[in-house]
């Protein structure tokens, strides 16, 4: 049952991903990408990470994609005007193919390390994913977490300056 579900989700994810790169209209690409993101959120749920799934939907599918769609609308770009697409497509596909090939060989030939951490499925069930991740985040990773805020601040300032000025 779970396998089947996984396969369906995978199918949807791959199809929507391919749509992202093939659609002429960027709006369509964006919608397809949202679809992919939803599929990924589903994976996260399947991996016992509901909090990540929620964040995925909110941040990516919600915030980032909305931003993109706004931009597309703002710039009013309808159709990708690309003409000579083909030879680049060939090269791109070759690269893509070899990327997949390499990865699969690594994945198949390699052996993952055995579980070392304390967070088993039962534990997650017991305490709840959000609490565990929060505990980790605000103890061991407190400093990077705080630093992140500076990163965001810088990004905001940068975005404002870039968008405001005529460069």
């Amino acid at each position, binding site marked *: 049952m779970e396998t089947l579900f996984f396969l369906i989700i995978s199918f949807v994810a791959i199809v929507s991903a391919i749509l992202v790169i093939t659609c002429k209209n960027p709006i369509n690409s964006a919608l397809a990408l949202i679809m992919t993101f939803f599929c990924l959120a589903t994976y996260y749920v399947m991996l016992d990470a509901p909090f990540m799934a929620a964040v995925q939907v909110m941040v990516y599918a919600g915030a980032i994609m909305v931003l993109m769609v706004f*931009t597309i609308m703002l710039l009013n770009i309808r159709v990708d005007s690309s003409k000579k697409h083909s030879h680049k497509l060939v090269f791109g596909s070759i690269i893509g193919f070899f990327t997949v090939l390499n990865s699969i060989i690594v994945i198949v030939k390699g052996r*993952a390390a055995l579980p070392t951490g304390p967070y088993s499925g039962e534990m997650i069930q017991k305490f709840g994913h959000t609490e565990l991740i929060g505990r980790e985040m605000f103890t061991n990773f407190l400093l990077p977490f705080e630093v992140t805020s500076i990163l965001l601040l810088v990004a905001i300032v940068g975005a404002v300056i870039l968008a405001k000025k005529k460069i």
Partner: protein
Amino acid sequence: MENLNSYLIMSAILFAIGTIGVLTRKNVIVIFMCVEMMLNAANLSFVAFSRHLGNMDGQIFVFFIMTVAAAEAAVGLALIIAFYNNKESIDVDDVSIMKW
């Protein structure tokens, strides 16, 4: 929970599709979306490994990656707008002054 390998393969496929998109498309926004897709593919690996190893670190990383992606989206889109203001286009082929 499904086998670790299947998630990783899924991640690889998504990453490859993203790469192809980055290499072949000319629309800057689409390229940008493909980059996001590649980041997400990486996220998937992180989460899968995290679950497999029973360690939360990977998921924390995903969280940070998302932050970076958000920041990147903000700055990147601002750049695209700035570029569009200058060139009336968002075609990467028009951004070729970075040559000799």
